[in-house]
């Protein structure tokens, strides 16, 4: 029998902080930005959750709910380091492990034995080796494993087979369905759906008409049908980097002109990354001199980036460090590597109200509506002139709808 096991770490960031500093154990720990700043809660210990504090909540709201809360600035390097240890631990149980995010992973297990016993061993190993706790969902469907891991948190284990869906899943509220937020729940309630079972009993044609493809997907999920499968990193789509480069019409020795071009390329790279819902932890600068000698200079960052401002800031430092531009430059390129899904990247960043983060989707929408070059960093203007003279694709007239 083949099973999917979803391992979901309990209050992960807060638990790691409590593990590192035993003085925090048993106390309401809130990981995120400092109170009084425009930041959000990344994780809250169960002691803080008892006061109503939740991940994603503004820190000032968390402080109001839990005045005795201990606010800790997050440490993404520590959390990632622990995640890698978790994935390695899980690989002892199955070669098929899919890291789903920094604090959750799927395993595929084939056994004729007691899958609960395997689950208990996984939980015990996590507790003894990482001094952390996890909740497990086990099913013959990957989606159901994900759903049921949340049924009995913390330190819980739930087994939910497809055959048990009407009995165990249908009485549950709508928000256990993956992707159902407040708005979708409202629309489902308008159709008379209050539970998962109601969604399963609603004709697909009705859900399709009212909610489109989302409705069809929700119906399949409510019936316990899914096509999800455990995908190991080796099997994942090969999207190792997103890059752009540009060959100049004539060799350039002026650093500010190269920076302007870097700014333009940073915007393109960042926009492509956001379109793919990816962010990158490594920025690599590529420069070629008039004699076709090429160098690359990169940097691994503590956080993944997907905004032009961030990519450009790193690229500028790399340019400064290389001093290669003094030899003259005929080609400039930037690539974003070590790609991770944007959601996971934001989870680790802790600056949820970041200016560039908020601005980028707006910039994307303006570009989608008025053309690629309708808006951009002021610094790119010089590059725009340069590229236009070179007959490059940049700075076309805006495409006004």
């Amino acid at each position, binding site marked *: 029998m083949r099973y999917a096991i979803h391992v979901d770490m309990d209050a992960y960031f807060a638990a790691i902080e409590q593990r*590192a*500093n035993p*003085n925090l154990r048993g106390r309401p720990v809130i990981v995120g930005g400092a109170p009084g700043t425009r930041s959000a809660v990344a994780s809250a210990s169960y002691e803080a959750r008892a006061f109503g504090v939740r991940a994603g909540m503004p820190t000032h709201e968390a402080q109001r709910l839990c005045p005795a809360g201990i606010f800790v600035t997050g440490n993404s390097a*520590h959390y990632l*380091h622990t995640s890698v240890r978790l994935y390695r631990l899980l690989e002892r149980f199955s070669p098929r492990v899919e890291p789903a995010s920094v604090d959750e992973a799927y395993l595929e297990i084939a056994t004729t034995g007691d899958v609960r016993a395997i689950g208990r061993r996984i939980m015990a190993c996590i507790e003894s080796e990482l001094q952390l706790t996890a909740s497990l969902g086990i099913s013959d469907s990957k989606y159901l494993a994900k759903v049921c891991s949340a049924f009995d948190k913390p330190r819980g284990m739930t087994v939910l087979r497809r055959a048990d869906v009407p009995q165990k899943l249908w009485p549950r509220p709508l928000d256990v369905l993956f992707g159902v937020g407040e708005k979708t729940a409202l629309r489902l309630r308008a159709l008379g759906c209050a539970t998962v079972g109601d969604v399963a009993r609603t004709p697909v044609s009705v859900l399709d008409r009212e909610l489109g493809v989302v409705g069809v997907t929700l119906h399949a999920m409510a019936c316990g049908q899914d096509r999800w499968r455990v995908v190991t990193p080796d099997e994942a789509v090969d999207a190792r980097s997103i890059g752009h480069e540009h060959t100049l019409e004539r060799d350039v020795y002026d650093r500010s002109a190269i920076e302007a071009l870097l700014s333009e390329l940073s915007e393109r790279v960042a926009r492509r990354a956001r379109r793919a819902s990816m962010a990158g932890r490594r920025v690599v600068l590529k420069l070629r001199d008039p004699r076709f000698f090429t160098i690359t200079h990169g940097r*691994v960052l503590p956080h993944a980036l997907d905004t032009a401002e961030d990519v450009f800031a790193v690229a500028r430092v790399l340019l400064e460090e290389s001093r290669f531009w003094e030899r003259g430059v005929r080609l400039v390129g930037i690539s974003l590597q070590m790609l991770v899904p944007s959601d996971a990247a934001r989870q680790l960043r802790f600056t949820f109200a970041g200016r560039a983060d908020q601005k980028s989707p707006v910039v994307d929408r303006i570009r989608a509506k008025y053309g690629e070059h309708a808006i951009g960093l002021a610094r790119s203007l010089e590059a725009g002139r340069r590229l236009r003279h070179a007959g490059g694709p940049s700075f076309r007239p805006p495409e006004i709808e």
Partner: protein
Amino acid sequence: MIESIQEPIEVLVRFVGGRIEPFRFRWNQSVFRIAKVTGAWEDREGQYRRLHFSVLTDNDDYFELRFHSGDFIWVLSKASLDG
């Protein structure tokens, strides 16, 4: 309350089984004996590795230490002295 300190310190370490294990450090003209290393992780700053350690002292004070492989400098990055 955990405070960001970011001050250079002197650290005595053991090399045990391929690992670095700090056991004493001097900060503000005081010597702190490390009772337990509660966490160790690393990240990079450019080409250099930075090793981080969370430690508890004999008095149950909590500190985070950081070693930079480029300049070989130890820094006290955080402290929580309220036990």
